């Protein structure tokens, strides 16, 4: 460049240095201003006005309460006064066990559709008008005085002795009659036992003592009660104590149930044929083999005579050889064999005969005398009776009933249609409902005075094995509601029942001393309970001894009553055999079974989103139900999944989507009960078909099985919300579930865990010198009940996605139970079409359950691919997922071989308010309805982040509990290098009724999980791709040794 030549052009760089500096200085100042303006929103800290002393150590920590809900003893975890988790009571000695309904009770408590306070419903004519407890109370009490025996209290089954006592006292004083109605509990067993032995009450089988269990349509895993699932699991692993052996379970049933899916051998017998088959077995034992006390009993032999195996084999579809073989197996296990019925099939017209046949078999096998039954010792409390309801309906129609109080019953929805209860209600001059919302029955009442949730009020319960528990409130009532017991005591006092007025006086608040109330809880029920419990504990009310004993009951949750009386003699009353003679014939064509929905049961909790979203363990359908059909019939009718079919039972018709139900008997179809609520709230209203309409009342029993039906294909298809992809697994190609048979296992303990080995790793392993968390899941103990999934959902703030969400494939469950039908190797391998479920596989399905959750792989494929550092491994072996760092590439989920990662497709944590966008996308509205309406947020666990839209989430091994254990160790000055067993119990393990899940520090010396991981049965999935999971699955062993 020549400096002498001046340029006509300005300097092309445009900005000189000084100008640039000036500019950036300004910008820096602007940046500082901007960042000062970026202060996070100001938050407040609201302390107590006056902190209760009991909370001084409890801020920011969970508090636990033993209580009982719907007859289930539970441990409720609360935070800052809100229940956030319902877990099985760890100290429960009653063996009652829980159902998913107990676990999901939180959703009922925080149900936004519950009534907020008493209202005048005016029989559904026009809008409701707010009312008050005093108005309702005075109305009822004034009418009670006049009505005499025209006053009826209609309740569900009563599980509380105190409630029963208060009803009895009120009845005795006023003439109020009490009718209890339970829509789905089959009473055939009690009836048959009553007829056979002269005293009712079915004894409790001891599955932990039986070597052979024969199920006659038994459903002890579908309707878990009295801890049968726990007892059953104790004998289901091949490692048994000295002298014991793994039990064998043979099931005969028409519909593949959860119970039948756990059987070692399963025969398809339709419901109406179960009684003849059972009788044929009894015939073979008693008449042919002359086994047991009945052998030689002429009456018994005569009654069984028509049931020779050859005759029954013709009608039942089970061959004579099979029947004989089965009978031989039973005879060989005599004294160690149990025969169980009591499933949905017992709701058929032949149900009592079926139950009687089971009794005969048990008698012949010496099951009673060998101690395989515990005698029932629970206090006899009013349970449901269809006969009483039928009588009541008649009286209502004839106008004899002048006052009806409904409490915890919804007969308009669930009573047999022939009773015409809606019309009957219209003829009762005054109806008050104490249900918790304007449901089908309440809508036809004059007043609705909403009852509190059991978590809000005092009561008690009688549990099996002579145990009594107190139901203590764990939260103040959220709305203007009252406990049923409170209401009854108050009404009793107003009606002049002796003693009640004194309780009211005692409970009245002392004026002007709000801060120093001497009585901690002014609840009437509390006073009533204590009076009753003083008598039960045989202690002076108000004495120090009583207070101490009472506090101990509240602390431990239960009190062991006097030892059960000696078992009564089990000798057969010959008159009972008449039941066999009058056995009704099987329907010629198709027969229908109506079974209680596995989660929703009778539909009482029909607005519970967790229960709706809970996929049926067998059908894997959530949010609704379907007509289960045999695969062959389904194929013959050329149906597609969800095609609408009309079920015509003669007296009623129901349209339901069709489902190809594996293992279904060809001549049987089934529909779940408990769906199709029309008035329960915005969550469950209108979900699924209402099958209660198909029930038939006959002989005082609502028949729910072996109903003759016709099917007609009607136009339309209703997509079913399947929580699972393919049903079938070809284990030869995909060794993902370790399964073997007992005989194989005895030859080779590692059998069933064979899989392709992984290649060598290019890299050295990372060291894990301290604690390393791991889990072991024993598939022999897991029965697929799914309680772990609800426990997980509650603990970890997992949202619900609704029917559309499931159909869209946006389920959020961190833990799921995969259900497969095993397609065993046949001439080489299955081809690609195996995934459609060929008839060979699904007609006689071998069902496998596999709980699936994040495997916390040592070489986690998800971690490598996240560019944002949102997921990586912790030093104690956890696969961490950091929500606040996650930006949502979903790459990790794609690269997860187990597909356990869940993406927040929507904003589940808070409602998105924009009318335009809600109109554009109705799913946004539904999500808000399901997840974010007040007070639903109260259920959230504050220890777990509520995830926002657009982030990935997954099982964390309940890291919040791990962290709490670490913090506790620090506080207490203990070592944090290793943790003993039980220091950390994740929610799934806590909820598991069978002990199938074990969690702990695999590096801790002598830890249980380390021993299980080293077991020959242990298998870590997908060795071939070297991901090295932290979860060991223990082989499911099928007992093939007849």
């Amino acid at each position: 460049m020549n400096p002498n030549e001046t340029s006509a052009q300005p300097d092309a760089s445009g900005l000189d240095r000084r100008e640039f500096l000036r500019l950036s200085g300004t910008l820096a100042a602007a940046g500082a201003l901007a960042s000062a303006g970026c202060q996070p929103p100001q938050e407040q800290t609201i302390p107590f006005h006056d902190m209760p002393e009991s909370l001084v150590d409890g801020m920011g920590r969970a508090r636990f309460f033993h209580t009982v809900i719907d007859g289930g003893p539970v441990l409720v975890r609360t935070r800052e006064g809100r229940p956030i988790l319902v877990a099985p009571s760890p100290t429960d000695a009653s063996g009652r066990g829980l159902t998913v309904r107990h676990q999901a009770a939180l959703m009922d408590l925080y149900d936004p559709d519950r009534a907020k306070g008493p209202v005048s419903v005016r029989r559904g004519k026009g809008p409701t008008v707010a009312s008050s407890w005093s108005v309702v109370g005075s109305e009822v009490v004034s009418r009670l005085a006049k009505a005499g025996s025209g006053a009826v209290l209609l309740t569900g089954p009563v599980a509380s002795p105190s409630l029963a006592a208060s009803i009895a006292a009120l009845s005795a004083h006023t003439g109020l009659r009490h009718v209890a109605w339970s829509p789905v509990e089959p009473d055939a067993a009690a009836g048959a036992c009553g007829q056979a032995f002269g005293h009712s009450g079915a004894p409790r089988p001891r599955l932990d003592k039986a070597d052979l269990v024969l199920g006659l349509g038994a459903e002890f895993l579908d309707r878990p009660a009295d801890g049968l699932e726990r007892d059953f699991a104790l004998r289901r692993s091949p490692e048994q104590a000295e002298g014991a052996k793994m039990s064998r379970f043979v099931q005969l049933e028409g519909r593949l149930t959860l119970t039948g899916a756990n059987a070692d051998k399963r025969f398809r017998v339709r419901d109406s044929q179960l009684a003849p088959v059972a009788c044929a077995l009894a015939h073979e034992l008693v008449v042919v083999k002359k086994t047991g006390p009945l052998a030689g009993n002429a009456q018994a032999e005569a009654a069984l005579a028509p049931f020779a195996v050859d005759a029954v084999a013709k009608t039942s579809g089970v061959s004579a050889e099979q029947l004989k073989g089965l009978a031989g197996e039973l005879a060989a296990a005599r004294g160690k064999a149990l025969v169980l019925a009591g499933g949905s099939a017992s709701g058929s017209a032949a149900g009592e005969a079926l139950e009687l046949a089971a009794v005969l078999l048990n008698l012949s096998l010496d099951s009673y005398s060998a101690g395989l039954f515990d005698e029932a010792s629970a206090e006899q409390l009013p349970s449901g009776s269809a006969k009483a309801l039928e009588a009541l309906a008649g009286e209502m129609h004839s106008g004899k009933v002048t006052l009806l109080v409904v409490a915890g019953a919804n007969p308009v929805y669930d009573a047999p249609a022939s009773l015409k209860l809606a019309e009957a209600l219209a003829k009762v001059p005054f109806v008050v409902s104490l249900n918790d919302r304007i449901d089908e029955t309440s809508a036809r009442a004059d007043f609705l005075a909403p009852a509190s949730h059991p978590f809000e009020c005092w009561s008690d319960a009688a549990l099996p094995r002579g145990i009594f528990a107190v139901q203590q409130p764990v939260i103040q009532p959220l709305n203007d509601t009252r406990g049923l017991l409170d209401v009854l005591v108050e009404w009793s006092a107003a009606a002049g029942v002796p003693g009640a007025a004194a309780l009211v006086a005692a409970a009245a608040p002392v004026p002007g001393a709000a801060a120093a109330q001497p009585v901690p809880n002014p609840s009437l029920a509390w006073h009533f309970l204590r009076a009753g419990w003083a008598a039960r504990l045989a202690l002076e009310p108000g004495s120090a001894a009583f207070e101490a004993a009472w506090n101990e009951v509240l602390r431990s949750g239960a009190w062991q009553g006097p030892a059960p009386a000696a078992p009564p003699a089990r000798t057969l009353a010959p008159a009972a055999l008449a039941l066999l003679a009058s056995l009704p014939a099987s329907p010629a064509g198709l027969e229908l079974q109506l079974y209680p929905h596995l989660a929703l049961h009778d539909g009482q909790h029909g607005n519970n989103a967790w229960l709706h979203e809970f996929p049926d363990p067998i059908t894997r359908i959530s949010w609704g139900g379907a007509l289960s059909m045999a695969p062959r019939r389904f194929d013959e009718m050329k149906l597609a999944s969800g095609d609408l079919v009309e079920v015509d039972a003669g007296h009623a018709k129901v349209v339901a989507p069709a489902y190809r139900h594996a293992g279904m008997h060809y001549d049987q179809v089934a529909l779940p009960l408990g769906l199709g609520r029309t008035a329960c709230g915005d969550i469950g209203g209108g979900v699924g078909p209402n099958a209660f309409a198909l029930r038939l009342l006959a002989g005082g029993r609502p028949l729910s099985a072996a109903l003759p039906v016709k099917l007609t294909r009607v136009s339309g298809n209703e997509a079913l919300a399947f929580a699972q992809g393919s049903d079938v697994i070809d284990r030869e190609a995909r060794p993902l579930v370790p399964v073997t048979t007992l005989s194989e296992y005895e030859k080779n303990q590692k059998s069933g865990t064979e899989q392709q080995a992984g290649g060598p790793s290019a890299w050295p392993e990372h060291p894990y010198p301290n604690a390393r968390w791991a889990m072991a899941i024993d598939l022999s103990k897991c029965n697929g009940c799914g309680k772990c999934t609800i426990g997980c959902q509650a603990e970890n703030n997992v949202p619900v996605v609704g029917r559309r969400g499931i159909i869209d494939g946006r389920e959020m469950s961190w833990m799921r139970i995969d259900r497969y039908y095993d397609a065993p190797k046949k001439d080489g391998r299955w081809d690609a079409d195996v995934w459609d479920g060929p008839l060979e596989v699904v007609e006689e399905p071998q069902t496998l359950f596999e709980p699936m959750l994040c495997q916390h792989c040592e070489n986690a494929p998800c971690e490598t691919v996240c560019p944002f550092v949102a997921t990586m491994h912790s030093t104690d072996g956890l696969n961490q997922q950091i929500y606040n760092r996650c930006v949502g590439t979903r790459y990790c989920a794609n690269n997860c071989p187990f597909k356990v990662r869940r993406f927040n497709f929507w904003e589940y944590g808070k409602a998105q308010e924009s009318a335009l966008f809600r109109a554009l996308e109705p799913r946004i509205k539904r999500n808000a309805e399901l997840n974010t309406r007040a007070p639903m947020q109260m259920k959230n666990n504050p220890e777990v982040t509520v995830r926002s839209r657009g982030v990935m989430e997954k099982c964390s091994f309940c890291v919040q509990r791990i962290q709490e254990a670490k913090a506790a160790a620090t506080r207490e000055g203990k070592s944090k290098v290793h943790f003993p067993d039980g220091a950390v119990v994740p929610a799934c393990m806590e909820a598991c009724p069978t002990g199938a899940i074990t969690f702990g520090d695999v590096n801790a010396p002598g830890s249980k999980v380390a021993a299980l991981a080293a077991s020959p049965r242990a298998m870590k999935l997908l060795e071939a791709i070297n991901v090295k999971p932290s979860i060991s699955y223990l082989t499911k062993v099928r007992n093939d040794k007849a």
Partner: protein
Amino acid sequence: MTPTSNKGVLGHFCEPADALAAAAKVRDAGWKHFDFLTPFPIHGMEEAMGQKRSWIPWVTLVLALCGILFAQGLQNYVMVFDWPMNFGGKPHAAWPSYIPITFEAMVFWAALGSALVAIVAGKIDTIPQPPPMLVKTGATVDRFVLWISATDPKWNAAEAEAFVKSLGAHGVRLVDVKEEADA
């Protein structure tokens, strides 16, 4: 940035071959501050004008090495030294993972740097040019223009004009921007 010269002589050719032939003659005549303005590059013009090979490739090499160093430095600092984390069981220094970014950074530095440097070099590593937009040359259309700047040591306006005419160039004219602007 570009040095400009307000004075010089311009003449154009209509075919690249003519320009090429002329260039050698200009070079041989000892002119230093001359240039050919052409609508497209002419093969062989560098030799004809007596220019050395462009030094841009060396810049590219240095920048490519810088890119490699930058990428390796950043990745190793982040993954190994600053906060080593366990991603899917891989070692902290999982070197195969660093190859793609190293390559990309190399290309990025080398390519963008070379392009930038070439543009700047075209402005700096040159002789004073006729002021753009003020002097029309037709070089972006179809003329192959010879420019001899007045800054040449042996500049003599009359001699230069005569020389250019002697090469067979058309439209030979002396340029004086000030005069043109005033006019």
